[in-house]
């Protein structure tokens, strides 16, 4: 007769709030995700700007003056850096999501990610043109 088998599997709990410190790749992932907050904050700032514009000239000029403060410049530098990090890390992942098969091969990753950078540059140029930057 078969011997009785004792099964008592041991479950290791994953720490709910500190799990991303377990490995550098989790920290890199969290960095990519958390940097979106700065894009969100900048979008809010744009909405506030629009609201001030709607309130009239004095309000708009006060808003512009606020943008010139050292705090504001520091925020813009920070937001730009984090937005770039967010955008670049995501663009570099696009070839995974959008493979383009041609015959028995696939378009190189650099072409797919490169197309995203190209469209990004083009849209930025159009926006700058519309804003009268050149």
């Amino acid at each position, binding site marked *: 007769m078969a011997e009785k088998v*004792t099964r008592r*599997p*041991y479950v290791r709990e994953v720490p709910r709030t500190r799990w991303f410190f377990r*490995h550098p790749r*989790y920290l890199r992932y969290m960095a990519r995700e958390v940097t979106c907050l700065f894009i969100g904050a900048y979008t809010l700032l744009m909405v506030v700007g629009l609201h001030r514009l709607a309130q009239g000239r004095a309000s708009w000029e006060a808003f512009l003056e606020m943008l010139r403060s050292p705090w504001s410049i520091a925020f813009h530098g920070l937001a730009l850096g984090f937005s770039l990090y967010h955008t670049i890390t995501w663009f570099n992942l696009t070839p*995974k999501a*959008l493979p383009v098969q041609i015959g028995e091969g696939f378009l190189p990753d650099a072409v797919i990610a490169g197309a995203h950078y190209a469209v990004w540059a083009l849209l930025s140029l159009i926006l700058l043109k519309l804003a009268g930057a050149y």
Partner: protein
Amino acid sequence: MSERLVELEVLRYNPETDSKPHFQRYSVPCREEWVILDALNQIKETIDATLSYRWSCHMAVCGSCGMMINGEPKLACKSFVRNYDGVIRVEPLAHFPIERDLVTVIDDFMGKLARVRPYLIPREAKTVEQGEYRQTPEELKRYKQYTLCINCMLCYAACPEYGLIPKFIGPAAISMAHRYNLDSRDGGRELRQEEIAASEGVWECSFAGACSEVCPEHVDPAAALQQVKIASTIDWFKEHLMPWLKK
């Protein structure tokens, strides 16, 4: 033949006597060309016969010897001892319950794999007389990469989402479903979508990409999951915004 003494710290758990796992240190004389699996075999043969772990092929094909080596999900048969300095810490695959020592309980994965129907469901059934299901090299290339999965579950041990949300169907099973969905001979996508397009399916994935980083066969499960998300989103738009397309 150069030999050196390697210190291995192995997580031990005996369900009959231990209340929780503990590390046990072994000094193993290892040869230059040895992998971690050789060192474990050496322990079992000459030092401690009670050590339990899974292995079979010793050539990165069977997918049995997945374990955490210095905190990284690895195949023990593909990890050379010479690439590690100091004490090497060997633990069972993360995110799976421990059965005994380095042996994990894999029922959860096996159940999920079966749920996604990882086999060909022919578009139209043919009799033997009607001949084989033919495919061009291009059609094969479309999914070939995803056939390389050896079900070693390293991706589950790496996936932070699976660690936090165990009901997530997970990288390998969804990649396998994607492999058959991409197959020109297959017609089972709608059946598989019920499992993989659900919230426990692909939408638990937040594209941390850890699965693809640790995959020993370069299957790139993260790519498969993002492609399933896009295809499922297109399904949704077709169903809700273009109802006239419905059959």
